[in-house]
């Protein structure tokens, strides 16, 4: 009971602190902008810890954050190996293949209205194929190692990037296009000097959606066959062994990697589309 009360207390305190911070005079400082979500996250973790202790939750159902932390600290080399297998091989390679394929198809589709009209709905249909159905097929075709994971990821990220790129390529206004026409510019100069740059904000939108999909795809695909390494393998195996602290340690790594990937893409976006009003 003590723990539960304490949990409520901490929750209230965290919220109050955040209220003060975000409505206070220093609200615009970068440090505060980082502190507010950090406090929010920390509150959740502490409340979780206290709840687990207070209600004596069985660790095979929900482990305490401290034991997850201990796993993170102890199993560094396993986590790193899994990270390399799943993120650096499966997710990243798949992401790059998917993105390149999406650009290629987008540019192809963009050359004719007819193709665009045909490819987008069909692409949408493909994107609706659920991963639990496609992953076993791709594992069957490409084997259990990371290649099939990369393929699953490529399939998953393909559509959001395609749609956004196609939309972006259409985004130039008539005046910008007419300007190119007055220069008697051909297709490729127009593409590289006008349409791709102006499509960049859209493309990054697709690329950012892709980052979280890539990680999830790579992990989930490992459920359907994998070598004995990888984050999805570890999650499923540890879960079967009721080592839930290890499962959560992998989930934390996944969330960190996903957020870092997303953050990195946001950073690149800021650098590349610095000119867009949303970035100024």
């Amino acid at each position, binding site marked *: 009971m003590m723990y539960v009360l304490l949990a409520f207390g901490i929750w209230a305190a965290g919220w109050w602190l955040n209220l003060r911070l975000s409505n206070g005079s220093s609200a615009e400082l970068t440090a505060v902008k980082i502190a507010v979500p950090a406090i929010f996250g920390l509150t959740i973790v502490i409340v979780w810890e206290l709840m687990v202790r207070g209600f004596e939750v069985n660790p095979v159902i929900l482990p305490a954050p401290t034991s997850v932390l201990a796993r993170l600290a102890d199993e560094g080399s396993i986590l790193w190996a899994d990270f390399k297998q799943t993120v650096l091989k499966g997710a990243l390679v798949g992401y790059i293949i998917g993105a390149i394929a999406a650009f290629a198809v987008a540019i192809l589709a963009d050359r004719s209205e007819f193709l665009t009209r045909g490819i987008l709905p069909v692409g949408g249909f493909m994107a609706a194929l659920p991963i639990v159905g496609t992953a076993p097929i791709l594992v069957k075709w490409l084997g259990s190692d990371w290649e099939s994971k990369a393929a699953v990821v490529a399939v998953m990220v393909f559509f959001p990037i395609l749609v956004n790129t196609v939309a972006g390529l259409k985004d130039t*206004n008539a*005046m*910008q296009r*007419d*300007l*190119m*026409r*007055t*220069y*008697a*510019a051909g297709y490729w*100069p127009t593409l590289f*000097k*006008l349409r791709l*740059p*102006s499509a*960049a904000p859209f493309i990054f939108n697709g690329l950012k959606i892709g980052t979280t999909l890539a990680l999830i795809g790579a992990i989930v695909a490992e459920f359907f066959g994998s070598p004995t390494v990888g984050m999805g393998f570890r999650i499923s195996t540890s879960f079967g062994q009721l080592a839930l602290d290890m499962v959560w340690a992998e989930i934390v790594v996944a969330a960190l990697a996903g957020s870092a990937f997303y953050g990195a893409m946001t950073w690149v976006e800021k650098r590349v*589309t610095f*000119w*867009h*009003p949303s970035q*100024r």
Partner: protein
Amino acid sequence: MSEAQSVIRAKGLDLTFQTNDGPVHALKGVDLDIKQGDFVSFIGPSGCGKTTFLRVMADLEQPTGGEITVNGVTPEQARKARAYGYVFQAAGLYPWRTIGGNIRLPLEIMGVPKSEHAERVAKVLELVELSGFERKFPWQLSGGMQQRASIARALSFDADILLMDEPFGALDEIVRDHLNEQLLHLWERTQKTIAFVTHSIPEAVYLSTKIVVMSPRPGRITDVIESTLPRERPLEIRESPEFLAIAHRVREGLRAGHSDE
């Protein structure tokens, strides 16, 4: 007529847009002859076809009837020969390029040797009084400066014809006065042929050697006024009786065109 050469010559020009609400006669039976070195303004109420006419000259729109030549050839051939620079109503600079980068854009596309770029950019920036802003991005400049940069962009490849569609429409009167003065200087110095669309009577009168008054539905030319003002025009000329007389004639022409709505 014999001395100066015809640069743009339209004969019975027609253009009908097919829209969902039926055909729109944007241009009907338009005849016009623009000579080398002319500064021609087009004025008229909204929808009278000023933009359309300019776009036909630029081969951005295909006429549905009549004839038009630019530099003696079809507009398409002229466009491919990069015979003109076009300035749009909004500056339309590419926001991801610096001012210098924007001005270099046509040079890159037209394959002007890299070695000449710097010099040309510097020259046109000076013409529009923007030296020193080469490395700024468009949004770091005021609206008037952006518009001047877009004029510099149209000048950079040194076409003989300048087509300008309400280039100063979005600017305030003071800045506009100033740009008008500069444009006149530029025109005098470079001897370019300029076709200029505007909504402002004083602007049209102040700038032009020839004012074309247009009227809508169908879009047509209702009056062509040859200016009697000297080429040398201080801003004060706008308060002279001669200026006011021309302005009055333009206003009358406009009102006549408007009344049949």
